[in-house]
């Protein structure tokens, strides 16, 4: 699905927003942000772990692949609680990238493993649901826990 404009459907309901720029160093801000949400919304340790894991995988993909390691590009993470659901919406202006297919699990022979490539598998394993939308300029990923 391609949205015609980069709308922000959760803007009016959003409880929290984290604005980041495209460097891996910026991602150190994510865990404290999630930690503050966990305290405020009484999020369990297990759910918090899953949120931090999925956000790390998604956001690092944006920095390394979406923006190809170029610094200075902005992207955002919005959080809203909808009933029992914890919803995170990640938006960027990077090239289209649909994280649709989990990577293969590590094979049974240590010496044939190509390190890396587990991020999407972890995302789909630990998120409740993942929805991708291609924007007119960029991507939106909605992750529910």
């Amino acid at each position, binding site marked *: 699905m391609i949205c015609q404009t980069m709308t922000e459907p959760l803007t009016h309901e959003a409880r929290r927003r984290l604005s980041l720029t495209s460097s891996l160093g910026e*991602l150190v801000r994510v865990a404290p942000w999630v930690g503050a949400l966990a305290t405020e919304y009484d999020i369990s340790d*297990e759910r918090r772990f899953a949120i931090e894991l999925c956000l790390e995988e998604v956001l690092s993909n944006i920095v390394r692949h979406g923006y190809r390691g170029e610094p200075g590009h902005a992207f955002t993470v919005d959080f809203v609680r909808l009933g029992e659901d914890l919803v995170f919406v990640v938006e960027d202006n990077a090239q289209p990238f649909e994280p649709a297919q989990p990577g293969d699990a*590590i094979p049974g022979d240590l010496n044939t493993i190509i390190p890396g490539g587990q991020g999407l598998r972890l995302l789909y394993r630990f998120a409740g649901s993942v929805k991708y939308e291609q924007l007119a300029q960029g991507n939106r990923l909605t992750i529910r826990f």
Partner: protein
Amino acid sequence: MTFASEELEGGITKVALNGRMDIEGAAAIDLRMNVAAGTAKKLLIDLREVSFIGSMGLRSLVLPAQAVSRRGGKVVLLGPVKMVEDVLRASNIQAVLPIHHEMTNALAALA
């Protein structure tokens, strides 16, 4: 993320990791992990104090383990907490790096 290594009886190198194996944590230990793996024949990676692991953390385990394995050595993992173990198992790491929760079992696996 902190790293401590110790030589045990039987030629076993124990590496104890402490903290978050996220992008930042993995980068902090990669060099020392690779140095340890460069000489170890039997490597025990103690994960009991690791509170988080992501795909970059997995990479920080797999690369040194491959170095040890290429020289005919063995690597085992000790004591990951539940969520860390869930990540390891979601990636099928346990198929190549056995997970033990008791030190005696981990040592026996390296004997």
